[in-house]
């Protein structure tokens, strides 16, 4: 039960973060090339991603021995989770610029506008391709998370529903806020997802290898708490590193802006 709740939270948050990035590109394509083509491109990519989950996920669960699956998928989750955590710590401590959806939006709009006028209400190939590519590439990471978390816990359907719910929620929010996507606290969400993916990864690598975690599924919560502490310590340490290299004044302004 505990792992099911954490699984839903992890998949939902990871999907939401990736969908915010995809939505930025779809909105840019829609405003410059026409909404019809942008929506069609986004919808086609979503359907294709769903087909990939069904085509790869179902055989994975039924054909691969569960312990092998858990070790491989745990390792995959660790690579993904540690990478997200690394980026989030570097951004929070001021070593890396925060992800800027406004900048991505402006860049995409400029690129699309320079390609000539869109075709308004009629189909526009460029708008379709840009929206399709944005949703498909960002969605591939979601597919990997759904497949890995869902198949190792034997809850592929639940993971797919959580991801689909995130797509619907982000889509609905996008329709309301449209271009204010930079207001979404993306780095904080990415940090939370990184902590959850790393915790699940460590848990599944251990479980698949034959390690007996104390408290079974409950140890996932202990791992999450442990990686929260590690993240907080890493951010504090990296802020001190930056302070030493640039001077304390610069760091306090970066720290304030990353909150």
């Amino acid at each position, binding site marked *: 039960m505990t792992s099911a709740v954490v699984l839903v939270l992890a998949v939902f948050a990871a999907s939401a973060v990736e969908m915010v990035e995809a939505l930025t590109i779809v909105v840019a394509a829609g405003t410059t090339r026409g909404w019809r083509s942008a929506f069609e491109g986004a919808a086609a990519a979503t359907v294709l991603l769903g087909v990939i989950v069904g085509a790869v996920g179902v055989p994975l669960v039924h054909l691969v021995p569960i312990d092998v699956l858990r*070790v491989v998928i*745990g*390792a995959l989750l*660790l*690579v993904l989770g*540690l*990478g997200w*955590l*690394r980026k989030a*710590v*570097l951004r929070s401590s*001021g*070593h*890396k610029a925060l992800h800027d959806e406004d900048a991505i939006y402006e860049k995409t709009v400029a690129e699309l506008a320079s390609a000539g006028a869109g075709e308004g209400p009629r189909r526009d190939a460029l708008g379709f391709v840009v929206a399709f590519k944005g949703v498909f590439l960002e969605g*591939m990471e979601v597919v*990997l998370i759904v497949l890995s978390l869902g198949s190792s816990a034997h809850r592929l359907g639940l993971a797919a529903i959580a991801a689909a719910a995130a797509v619907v929620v982000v889509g609905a929010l996008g329709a309301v806020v449209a271009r204010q996507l930079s207001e979404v606290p993306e780095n904080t969400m990415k940090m939370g997802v990184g902590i959850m993916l*790393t915790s699940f*990864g*460590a848990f599944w*690598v*251990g479980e698949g*290898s*034959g*390690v*007996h*975690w*104390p408290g079974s599924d409950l*140890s996932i919560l202990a*791992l999450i708490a*442990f*990686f929260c502490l*590690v*993240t907080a310590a*890493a951010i504090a*340490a*990296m802020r001190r*590193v*930056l302070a030493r*290299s*640039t001077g304390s004044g610069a760091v306090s302004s970066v720290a304030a802006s990353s909150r």
Partner: protein
Amino acid sequence: MTVLGRWLTAFGRFWWDFLVGDTPELFLGVLVVVATALLLRHDGVAAVAAVPLECAVLVAASVYRGRSRS
């Protein structure tokens, strides 16, 4: 190059970028974590402590490697 060749190259590049990319230390470190878990699986306490600790060291080392040097 044929369509199949281009597709396979793109597929391989996607997985290389996804797994290794600009953080090869994370990929190699995760292999060490897996090996540790397999080696210590019969020694409950050691494995339970080693796996999360190795992950913590890994993220700390990777973050330090990625620090801005300005």
